[in-house]
């Protein structure tokens, strides 16, 4: 009987790892550029469809395409930033909401036109394997997604702490104007950040493909979860996105089992509200979200 609990906790944490990766992208973009990207979930969707399309086309295993999709989404992020996002930096909230929600709708409809509304699944030789230990069994795909997510989050943390570009991102997060006085090209760093955040979303999408079917509106669930994670962890905090992601994955899995799957979202919203009652800035947040990477 305990095996079931272990199974639940482990798979909840593994799922949470992917949520953490999606949320890290969102929180970085918010931390540096103060943009709430409501299209973030749809960018995960783009990563999923791109993986699906490339897999179908090349007949390669989706895992081999993960780096390609990540780099492609980085480029897509730069493009979006140049064409749209940089124009709403510093704009009123409403403008930002309209622009990013609008972007999400465009992406969803593009996916609908190209791929239709059907659920699409991809087969992976690698993902078919099952890991067995401590009396529990887990799909290898979930495990890979978790390990890659954690590795990427660790790399991002090191990057933010040690590289000059990472330090520039943290500086902008804390004081944009002062950063520009340090001869930091803040608009360029904004673009780079949006590219990196989008790459995180795309990478998460690629890792999700062997686990879940993809359809045009899958981003709606993901963006909701990642906003919950980011606000729970503290806006702008990488550490917060990590802990928040793991927590939401765990809560979702446990409540799905004990209360029923239709109650999962309610369970994490209850926890979410409870945390915000006691810590309005989130678990790791500080007022003004100056904490990116520290």
């Amino acid at each position, binding site marked *: 009987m305990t095996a079931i609990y272990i199974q639940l906790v482990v798979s909840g944490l593994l799922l949470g790892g992917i949520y953490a990766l999606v949320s890290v992208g969102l929180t970085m973009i918010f931390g540096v550029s103060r943009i709430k990207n409501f299209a973030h979930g749809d960018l995960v969707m783009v990563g999923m469809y791109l993986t699906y399309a490339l897999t179908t086309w090349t007949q390669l295993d989706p895992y081999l395409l993960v780096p390609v999709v990540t780099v492609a989404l980085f480029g897509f992020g730069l493009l979006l930033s140049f064409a749209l996002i940089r124009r709403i930096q510093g704009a009123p909230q409403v403008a930002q909401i309209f622009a990013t929600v609008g972007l999400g709708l465009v992406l969803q409809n593009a996916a609908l036109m190209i791929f239709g509304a059907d659920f699409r699944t991809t087969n992976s030789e690698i993902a078919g394997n099952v890991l067995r230990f401590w009396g529990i069994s887990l799909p290898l795909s979930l495990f890979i997604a978790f390990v890659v997510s954690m590795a990427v989050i660790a790399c991002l943390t090191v990057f933010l702490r040690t590289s000059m570009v990472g*330090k520039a991102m943290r500086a902008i997060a804390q004081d944009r*104007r*002062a950063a*520009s*006085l*340090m*001869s930091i*090209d803040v608009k360029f760093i904004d673009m780079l950040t949006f590219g990196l955040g989008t790459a995180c979303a795309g990478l998460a999408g690629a890792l999700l493909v062997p686990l879940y079917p993809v359809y045009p509106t899958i981003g709606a669930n993901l963006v909701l979860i990642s906003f919950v994670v980011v606000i729970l962890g503290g806006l702008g905090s990488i550490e917060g996105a990590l802990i928040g992601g793991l927590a939401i994955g765990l809560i979702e899995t446990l409540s799905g089992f004990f209360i029923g799957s239709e109650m999962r979202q309610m369970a994490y919203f209850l926890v979410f509200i409870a945390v915000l009652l006691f810590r309005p800035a989130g678990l790791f947040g500080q007022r003004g979200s100056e904490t990116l990477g520290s």
Partner: protein
Amino acid sequence: MLKIEALDAYYGEAQALYAASLHIDEGEVVSVLGANGAGKTTLINALSGTIDRVGTVSFDGQRVDRLPPHVIAARGLVQVPEGRRLFNFMSVRENLELGAYSPHARAHVADNIDKVFSLMPRLAERSGQMAGSLSGGEQQMCAIGRAMMAMPKMIMFDEPTLGLAPIMVDMVFKLLNDIKASGLTILLVEQNVKHALAVSDRAYVIENGRVVLGGDAAELIHDPQLKVAYLGG
């Protein structure tokens, strides 16, 4: 070094600087004096390019009035901003490193950190500490050190002694004298008129966004109009 002609500056629609003209020669220390709200910070920010401005600004022989702030700073026109504006959640060392972000300064980070630390040993002791947890005087030292890390040709100081204890005020003016002795060009905004004029070669007075007076520091100190401008009369 710096020549400003007919410079206007705006906060959105509101104009805060009207046709300012002044010049600063290489190696000079020039004070800009004026009452609260006169437009001193506005002038500095217009020169740094962080607010909208129209007019002619030549720095080191080149026009800089259309350039974005990061390019102006990289050209060697650097400010120590009002209220210090340190990166509070980063260490003293990281703040100094960020001061040297431009490519030519970045090549000399290690040397320049040593120089800053020898000029301000307090910063060396605190190098791992978060900038936000420093005392006011130490924060000001950090802000000055950060500006020096950029290897500037000219530094603009915006009220560097604001809110500091008297002993720290003396320390900042000693630093200013050291920097002056090293040959750097300085624009100084200070509430402490006597102290400011004592280190300055020349001074300008701003009143309601207009430059109304200019001259040698030694003569200005006796000018009755200075007092009037300062009291906002």
